[in-house]
């Protein structure tokens, strides 16, 4: 009987830990899904009251990528700052003059630096900025894998029982 209980205990230890593994796998899957999911569609702007809606749409598209330096957490498209209005006018005029998107972005960075770009270019000074999230995720996953592997090699008696009933079983108390 004592032998049987011990066996039961060992097995139940494994069985009860299985949901924990599934939970972990689920969390990881969720994290990956969030990482890989496409960016949410941008909220639609109010319809512009301009003569040329197509040009206005291109203007909004470009200025949504540019930071307003007066209210730094807003895009030039969103900001009500005076400067943002001037810059929207500037972009509008440049589009009318047939300038390309890249020419307009270059025009802005020549004046305000890479800081105006919500998506700064990848270069030596910004490498850490771009790579840090991936590095941190990798580090976290590596730590998780190491911990799980170590735990999987540990004997059952090194784990605390999951509940009182198991505690009784572990203590080899007979249950009726």
């Amino acid at each position, binding site marked *: 009987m004592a032998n049987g209980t011990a066996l039961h205990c060992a097995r139940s230890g494994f069985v009860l830990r299985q949901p924990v593994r599934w939970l972990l796998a689920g969390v990881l899957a969720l994290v990956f899904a969030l990482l890989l999911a496409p960016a949410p569609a941008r909220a639609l702007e109010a319809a512009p009251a301009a003569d040329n809606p197509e040009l206005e749409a291109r203007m909004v598209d470009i200025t949504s990528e540019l930071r307003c330096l007066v209210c730094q957490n807003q895009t030039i498209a969103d900001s009500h700052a005076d400067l943002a209005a001037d810059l929207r006018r*500037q972009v509008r005029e440049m589009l009318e003059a047939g300038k390309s998107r890249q020419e307009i972005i270059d025009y802005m960075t020549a004046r*305000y*630096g890479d800081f105006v770009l919500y998506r700064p270019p990848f270069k030596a000074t910004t490498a850490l900025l771009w790579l840090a999230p991936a590095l941190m995720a990798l580090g976290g996953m590596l730590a998780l894998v190491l911990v799980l592997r170590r735990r999987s090699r540990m004997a059952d008696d090194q784990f605390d029982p999951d509940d009182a009933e198991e505690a009784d079983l572990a203590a080899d108390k007979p249950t009726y």
Partner: protein
Amino acid sequence: MKKHLRFLIPLALLLVLVLFLGAGLQLDPREVPSPLIGKAAPGFALTRLDQPGTTVRRDDLLGKVWMLNVWASWCVACREEHPLLVAFSRDKLLPIYGLNYKDQRADGMQWLSRFGNPYDVSLFDSDGRVGIDFGVYGVPETFIIDKQGVVRFKQIGPVTPEVIRDKIEPLVRQLNG
């Protein structure tokens, strides 16, 4: 030894985090490094604030070290900076040009006669286009431009006595050197 010192790991991580956050608090996110430093000042042709018929161009100023101070009558921080600029102009260290940014001529003139005029000339940039070319986003801003027309220094926000003493004066002496 190893086991009971483990609690130090999160503590050390916390300290590192606190150091980073502390350093972050010392930085001013409003101060964006200007890409114009070391580059030619943007070209402009603007009328004088006091003489709508007279145009001043960038190239008229080649050959001298000069200061460009962006100001406006509606700008509160300019008002704070102004007495210092008036005092600095008395030293006649270098010509000071004003860029009257997105203002009305009458308002600008009135402001100067009320609070004093430190500028050799004020240029009138009513629609702010020259301001955009100079990357202006927080008036007042101050630029030092050398004899070749290259921007050598930019101050965002009001200049302070320390900035004049530690940065502007040594730089102007060196450029005129």
